[in-house]
């Protein structure tokens, strides 16, 4: 109890430090990222799977920014993911010239810009209305983009997919190898940088104002927060993130199929965020790992029942652990903390 009391005193003495402490890095965070890096040496045969997880995590992260921190329920993130994939795919396919003009990083930039721009335009549609309206509008936009991808087959390759995506070596140095080593390192690095940005954003005054909008829009307006403008910004950022995730997929798998635009893709990514824990950022990462690991294990053990197990896990999780995996872990940590302070 003494340490607790001392903590309380410090908190009152310097309230700013108490706020800043919430943004401090904690050891499980270091652990997770170190683990992701260690995988390079631990399991070299599974690079392709890890790459897939990193990309999925970035897509899920884009949903958590929009849903978890601003309260916009979206089933259409696949539209931006797909737009990013096709943009980067086409840039790599038709990329003429040499480094730096055909660099994959430029493909990421292009994908982010295109997806962000479409996200910006469609954000005005999701400003109004309830959760259900938003769900339907985001789904509708995704369906429109999907059908466009199908019909504009002279650009996208239609149902055959976009063939001949040959990204130039990364920074002119690293070729994308068939084992996926470059791919995983590349996707992980991009995920890490974008994660750092997202983490800074949600801990900043901007992030606080977004959480305020999610928490109580009437009060948010009454203290002068331009709610609509903030939602447009975060929706655009989320779309750009999803676009970059799509670009990573196109570049590292060197193929774009219509699947990137599918409803299942959006639904899976939303499910992953719920699995991992909405509004935690790490939920997107941990959720993706859990989802892919489950798929990897269950789908090879009992391929015909994969959906069954997934459904069961989902039902159990929303019934008994509404905070997702991260929610479970935080509850566990709090319990340990209490036990420790009771003993002290």
């Amino acid at each position: 109890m003494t340490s607790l009391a001392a903590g309380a005193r410090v908190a009152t003495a310097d309230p700013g430090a108490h706020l800043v402490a919430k943004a401090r890095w904690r050891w499980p965070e270091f652990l997770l990222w170190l683990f992701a890096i260690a995988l390079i040496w631990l399991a070299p045969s599974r690079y392709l799977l890890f790459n897939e997880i990193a990309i999925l995590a970035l897509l899920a992260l884009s949903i958590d920014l929009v849903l978890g921190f601003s309260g916009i329920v979206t089933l259409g993130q696949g539209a931006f993911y797909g737009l990013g994939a096709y943009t980067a795919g086409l840039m790599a396919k038709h990329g003429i010239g040499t480094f730096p003009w055909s660099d994959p990083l430029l493909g990421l930039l292009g994908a982010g810009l295109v997806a962000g721009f479409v996200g910006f335009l469609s954000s005005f549609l999701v400003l109004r209305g309830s959760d259900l309206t938003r769900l339907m509008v985001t789904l509708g936009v995704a369906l429109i983009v999907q059908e466009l991808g199908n019909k504009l087959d002279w650009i996208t390759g239609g149902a055959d997919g976009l063939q001949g995506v040959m990204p130039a070596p990364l920074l002119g140095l690293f070729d994308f190898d068939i084992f996926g080593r470059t791919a995983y390192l590349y996707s992980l690095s991009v995920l890490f940088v974008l994660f750092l940005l997202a983490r800074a954003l949600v801990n900043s005054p901007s992030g606080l104002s977004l959480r305020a909008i999610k928490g109580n829009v009437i009060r948010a307006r009454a203290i002068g927060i331009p709610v609509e403008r903030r939602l447009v910004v975060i929706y655009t950022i989320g779309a750009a993130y999803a676009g970059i995730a799509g670009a990573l997929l196109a570049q590292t798998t060197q193929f774009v199929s219509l699947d990137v635009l599918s409803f299942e893709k959006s639904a899976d990514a939303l499910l992953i965020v719920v699995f991992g824990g909405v509004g935690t950022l790490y939920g997107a990462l941990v959720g993706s790992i859990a989802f892919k690991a489950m798929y990897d294990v269950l789908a090879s053990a009992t391929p015909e029942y994969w959906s069954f197990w997934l459904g069961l896990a989902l039902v159990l999780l929303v019934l008994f652990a509404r905070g997702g995996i991260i929610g479970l872990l935080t509850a566990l940590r709090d319990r340990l903390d209490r036990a420790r302070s009771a003993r002290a």
Partner: protein
Amino acid sequence: MAAVLETKALHKNFGGLTATNNVTFALPAGARHALIGPNGAGKTTFVNLLSGVLTPTSGTVYLDGTDVTRWPAHRRAGAGLARTFQINQLFADFTPLETIVLAISQAKGLATRFLRPVGTDAGVVSAAADLLQRLTLADVMHARVGSLPYGKQRLLEIAIAIASEPKVLLLDEPAAGVPESEREQILDVVAALPGEMALVLIEHDMDLVFRFAKSLTVLVNGGVLVEGSPGEIVNDPRVRQVYLGELHVEGFSQPHAGGALG
């Protein structure tokens, strides 16, 4: 004195119902004004029209001489019009400190910062901590707002509104639902608000109204029945007539005797 908040011929219809009827109203800087009236008189609708939650059917709202009739709520807030709500509108998952830091950051135009964490601006944090101290919320500044006792939440509702140092503050029944033992604290906080801040108190509790107000407006059926000093209102036969059906007239003849009316 120039009016800091003014309305001209303000109307609001909901379908066939006239909730606000031709209200012309002026609030001088530093006013201590109360808005009273029986249930359904249109007090809250009027406050929602002033603060931009609702748009009037016709008429004009001026804030500091500027026509703000078409301004959304957040823009009016930015221009110095703050309010509290009859039913708490708080951020349940925030702490009081986070709440006030956000309100101050927003008022100072710092809420779009996005790289450094909340709490790094020492000026904002100390201003927030001071405000919480003044409103006797310092000891709970790190608690979760949703788990605070109702009286504390009510104080926080006032704290958010004054964090931006507004020119005008609309207090919609600040003591509503607060247990008797904690009411005095709310009244003290209201009494201690800076003199230059113009206050409009919407209240049923006549004790509070007469302790606080230097001037009153009585609304009935959406329109202004009468305006005047507390003494004039108490002795106005029309006001007595309106309240006679539902209230004890003694509430008016002995304003300090108290008793919740309406």
